[in-house]
C-alpha cells in the first residue's frame, strides 16, 4: 500500500484519509469534523489560511494530508491566498472550497485552477462526504 493511499493507520485506528478543514468559524469546523469523522476520516483543523500553511508544514502532515477543505472569507491569509499557496506548493493535495457566499465567477476561476469542488453552505453531510471521496480518488490517481 502506498503511504499516500487511503486506508492507512493513524494512532492504531484505521483511517480513510486525513482532511484539513480551514474555516474561521469553530462551529463549522466542528460539524465538518463530526460528519467526516463518522465517515472514517482523520480531521485536522485550522482557523485561517496562515494556520493552515503552518499545519501542513508541520510534522508528518506534509506527507500524509489527503484533502483540504477551505473557506474563502477568513482573516489574515484568506481562502484565495491559501488556495494559491497550496496549488503552488502542494499541487497533489486536492482542494474543496466550502463557502457561505455563492459567487459564480469565483467558483469558475477556482475550478479552472484545479479545485475539486465548490460547495456552498449549508451543504448536506452526504454531499460533503461524496465530495471528499471524489477528492480522495483524485489524490490516489495523482500518485499512481
Amino acid at each position, binding site marked *: 500500500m502506498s503511504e499516500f493511499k487511503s486506508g492507512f493507520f493513524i494512532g492504531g485506528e484505521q483511517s480513510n484519509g486525513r482532511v484539513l478543514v480551514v474555516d474561521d468559524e469553530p462551529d463549522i469546523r466542528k*460539524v*465538518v469534523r463530526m460528519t467526516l469523522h463518522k465517515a472514517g476520516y482523520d480531521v485536522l483543523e485550522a482557523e485561517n489560511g496562515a494556520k493552515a500553511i503552518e499545519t501542513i508544514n508541520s510534522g508528518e502532515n506534509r506527507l500524509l494530508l489527503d484533502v483540504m477543505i477551505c473557506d474563502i*472569507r477568513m*482573516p489574515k491569509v484568506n481562502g484565495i491566498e491559501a488556495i494559491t499557496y497550496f496549488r503552488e506548493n502542494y499541487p497533489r493535495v486536492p482542494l474543496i472550497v466550502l463557502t*457561505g*457566499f455563492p*459567487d459564480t465567477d469565483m467558483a469558475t476561476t477556482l475550478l479552472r485552477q484545479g479545485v475539486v469542488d465548490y460547495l456552498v453552505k*449549508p451543504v448536506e*453531510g452526504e454531499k460533503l462526504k461524496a465530495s471528499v471521496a471524489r477528492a480522495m480518488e483524485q489524490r490516489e490517481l495523482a500518485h499512481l
Partner: protein
Amino acid sequence: MMNRSTTQGTEATSSPPVHAGIMGERIESAPVPLPMRVAIIGAGRGGTALLDGLHQISTIEIVGIVDRNPSAPGLKRAHELNVPVYDRLSDLTQHQRLHLVMDVTGDPAMKRMLHEQLPAGADLLSGQAARLLWTLMQHEAHLQAELLHAEKLAGIGSFAAGIAHDMNNPLQLILGLAENLAEETDIGTVRDQARDIIEAVKRTTAICRDLTSYSRRASLRQEGLISVNGKLDEALKIARYAVALQDIDIRKRYQPDVVVKGNPDELLHVFVNLITNAVQAMADQGTLTLETAVTADATQVRVSDTGCGIAPELFGRIFEPFFTTKPPGKGTGLGLYNIKSVIHHMNGNIAVESQVGRGSTFTLTFPHDSAVSERSAQT
C-alpha cells in the same frame, strides 16, 4: 485629543501634505455672494420648516423669528440653531438692512400690519406665496429623505457577501447538527446539540433583525437623543456585512455618555457610510479608529483610517452629489453628500483631514445646543 487641525503641512516636511476642509468646500476661492437677510414671522409648522430649510443655505442669514405664542415649536428650534428669537414683531421688522420678511402665520391681518411696518428696501412674502414656499421646502425635505433612503438601499446591495456568510454559517451548523441528531442516541449529546441549534437560529434571527431595522425608511419626525457610542457600535455590526473587518484593527476611544440630538436612523446610516468608506480605503487591512469626545464647545465624533487617503485634486469634490472614485456600479456617489446633509440638518458640520498614503480622518462636530449628557437622555 479631539482638537481639529485645519492647517496644512503639520507633519514633517518629508510627509505628504495634509489637506483639510469643512463641508466639502472647494479649496480654490470663489466669489461669495452677500447673504440675503430674512425675518420669519410665525413659528408654527411653516416657520419651523422654513428655519430648517433656510438655515442650510449659506447665502441666507435668518436675522430672527417671532411668534405670539411663546411655546411655538419654531422658537425652540430657533434656539437650537442659534437664530435670534424676538418677543415683539416691531423689534424684528425694524431690523437694519432686512431684505425679506416671510409671513407664515396665515393671518390676513398680519399681512396688512407688516405692510405698514416694512422697512425701506425690504420685500414681504406672505399669503399664498409663503404657502407655496413652505410647500416647496416640505417637498425638498421629502426628496432629501427619498435620496437618503435610495442611497441606503443601493448600499445594501453590497451587503450580499457578508449576509450570505453570516447566514449560511449558522445554517451549516444547524444542518450538520440536525443530521447528527437523527442518529444520535446519547441524551446528553442530543441536549447539547439541540442547544447549539437554538443558538444558531438566534444568530440568524439577529442578522435579519439588524438588516430590516437598518433598511427601513427613516421617519422624518423620529428625532430624539442618541447615544453616540452605542450608535457607532451598531454601525460596526452593520458595516461588517459590506466590508471585511477580520483584518482591521478596530480601536475605540469613546468618552462615556456622549449624546447628540437627531434622527437615530439617519445617524446610523452616516456612521455605516463613514466606517465602510474607511475600510474600503484601507483595502480591508489597517487601523480603524472611532473616537467620541465632548469638548468645551461641542460634541465630536471622529472616524479615522490608515488607508490610501484622498488625492488633493479630489479633495474639494468629495461632498458633491454623484461624485465617486469607485468603479461603475460600486458606488452611487451620494454617500458623503447625504452624510453632509444629515449632519447639517443636525446643526453640525463635517471636516476632513487626509494625507495620501497615510489615511483620512472625518470629524463630525455637533454644537452643545444639540449635544446633551447621557444623564439627561436617561431622565
